[in-house]
């Protein structure tokens, strides 16, 4: 279980958010929504261990293994889609067969040996989704994963979310989209 108690984050003497308390059980998913600057990305960075200078308490289960995907894709421009997945620091040892399988599902197989500098933003985001699919983590922290995705991939990613949750994972992701989908919401506007 992931728990926060009175979690606050200050930047230049101004609180981005304060007194955030929640608990994430296994098999759960939460969508962080809120206006720009309300701390959605900051919260994900705190939970992933990138930002350390927060106030309040944060506790993980010993078996929590984190997969973080930020606003920036982390892809190397002169590596191909396949190489970017193969060398992804977040992934365990994976075979070419596994990479081919996810690239096929994401309609990226024809672009797998093209350097990522030549790919569109949507295709770069898809490479991150491929890593997400191949990850064996159980806590996923995803910063706006639906950005730049077409309708088909958006639906596909939602299906992957369901699959991961059924396998016992916890997913927290940020989004600007407040549409009435099935995901429970944490509204960061309430913690400013």
């Amino acid at each position: 279980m992931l728990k926060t108690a009175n979690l606050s984050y200050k930047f230049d003497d101004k609180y981005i958010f304060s007194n955030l308390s929640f608990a994430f059980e296994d098999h759960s998913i939460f969508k962080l929504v809120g206006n720009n600057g309300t701390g959605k990305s900051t919260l994900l960075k705190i939970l992933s261990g990138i930002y350390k200078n927060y106030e309040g308490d944060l506790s993980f289960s010993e078996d929590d293994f984190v997969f973080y995907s930020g606003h920036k894709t982390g892809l190397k421009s002169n590596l191909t889609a396949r190489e970017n997945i193969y060398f992804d620091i977040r992934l365990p040892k994976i075979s070419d067969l596994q990479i081919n399988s996810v690239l096929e599902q994401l309609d990226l197989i024809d672009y797998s040996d093209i350097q990522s500098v030549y790919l569109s933003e949507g295709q770069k985001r898809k490479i991150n989704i491929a890593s997400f699919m191949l990850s064996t983590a159980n806590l996923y922290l995803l910063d706006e994963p639906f950005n730049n995705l077409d309708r088909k991939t958006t639906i596909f990613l939602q299906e992957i979310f369901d699959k991961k949750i059924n396998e016992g994972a916890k997913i927290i992701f940020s989004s600007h989209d407040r549409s009435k989908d099935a995901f429970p919401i944490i509204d960061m506007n309430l913690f400013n």
Partner: protein
Amino acid sequence: MFYFIKILKKEFLIYSRKSSSFISPVVFFLISISLYPIGISNDPGILKNLAPGLIWITVLLSTLISFQNIFSEDYEDGSIELLLASGQNLSLIVLIKIFVNWIFSCLPIIILSVLSVFLLYFPQEGLKPLIISLLIGTPTICLFGALAGALSLGKNSITGPALMLPLSLPVLILGTQAINYSLNGINFSSNILLLTAILVFLLPIILFASVGALKLHFN
């Protein structure tokens, strides 16, 4: 161990595809070494005396071209965030990045420094101390470069060199002195030992400091 081998292979692949990372320092070195006989003097006696210092200064300036890239691309494309979130040993990752940077930006220059025999009338008997001092001294310069690169992420391009050059002065002095000692028939081993001691002593300190500097940008 699996993750570190993975990072090592990845860094090698990235550098091998980024020709500017090793061509730019080499071209800068070759142009500078070729210009000294034109700009200073074509008198073999003068060039021979100045050669140890000229070679070391040129090597130092050549490395300036590449060290800013050690972390800047990772910072811009978000890779550093992923490394910080990965929970892996960051010091070891930084060491791998510095090692690969040294292989691609310093090793070719060290090999090409042999050309100074022809271009600067550098005595052949001085090649051994030249190569040894460069092999031991340039990793320390790369360490300083990594620290300066980590501290100056996102800042203007003059900050890194301004931090790195003063730190590199002892290495420059010891390296040049070792070659001059050798050319004058004096035992230069104490200089090489001092260069080695500096490298061994600074390696863990600078790795620790570089990791701290990288984390500083995220807090």
